[in-house]
């Protein structure tokens, strides 16, 4: 007979911080997408904001193709910033800043900018909207970026880059 405490301990080991805030947060992320979708028919992803916002300052046709959606994409992004701010204020978490080094954020950001645009989506476009649509392109995209990110994060850790 296995003691129930042991079963709980084994099951919870991969989740040292519990699962409820992850699961509820995920459901809210999905709900945010759904609210926009039900009203407008648009499955909104977060990374197209980069290209659509560049259309304000660049005449390249590549960016101008997103001009019709650029205003609402700015509003969507401002909503995301405001929503996180509401969380920080309402739940008393307050201001939080990262210790991850600036060059990791900058270099990572450049690769993310290239990769999401080339690969047609990011964690929200492919990972949430695409997977929710059972899109084969999105399954391939998610599996690719998840495996590569896991490998990269382990390499960075093994190389002793902290934090």
């Amino acid at each position: 007979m296995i003691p129930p405490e042991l079963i709980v301990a084994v099951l919870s080991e991969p989740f040292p911080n519990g699962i409820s805030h992850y699961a509820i947060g995920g459901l809210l992320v999905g709900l945010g997408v759904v609210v926009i979708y039900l009203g407008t028919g648009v499955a909104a992803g977060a990374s197209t904001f980069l290209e659509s916002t560049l259309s304000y300052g660049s005449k390249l046709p590549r960016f101008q193709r997103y001009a019709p959606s650029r205003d609402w994409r700015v509003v969507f992004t401002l909503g995301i910033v405001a929503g996180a701010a509401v969380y920080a204020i309402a739940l008393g978490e307050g201001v939080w800043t990262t210790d991850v080094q600036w060059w990791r954020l900058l270099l990572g950001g450049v690769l993310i900018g290239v990769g999401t645009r080339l690969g047609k989506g990011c964690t929200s476009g492919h990972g949430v909207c695409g997977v929710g649509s059972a899109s084969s392109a999105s399954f391939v995209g998610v599996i690719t970026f998840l495996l590569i990110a896991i490998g990269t994060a382990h390499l960075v850790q093994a190389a002793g880059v902290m934090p």
Partner: protein
Amino acid sequence: MSADHEQHPLFLPLVFAGGLIFGFGLALSEMAKPEVVLSFLQFEDFGLLFVMFGAAAVTGLVFFTAPRLLGRAPMTGAVYRRRLKTLDRNVVLGGGVFGVGWGLSGICPGAAYASLGIGNYAILWGIAGMFVGAYVQGYWRSAGAEAGASSPTGAD
């Protein structure tokens, strides 16, 4: 070109409300903290699996039922569709490049915007990088299109 939001006075308020819920969820799930994302990628805490699959479960339910049960979207008149992209070499190449960036930094676009909302001004390094990367990619793509080498591809 007419803007998408010209059709309905509640279009922008609704998009803002959706973004608000989306950003609140990202902050609550701690995806807005690069350290937490990195601890997931380094197999120290698998909780983030619940974020992506929880979100996809909600969108999946609606993306599959709305086209069958509802007519057209009230604010745009758009037909409800799923989000489908063409699967080609770029999905794998771009996914790989994105993966390196995500694994190096622990940030992704939506979570980076949310991170700004929790006061993490250092994330501006990452957001600036994303704009540079998107510009470089668009510049290459435009040069290729002018040479007739590639056709326009949708992105989200």
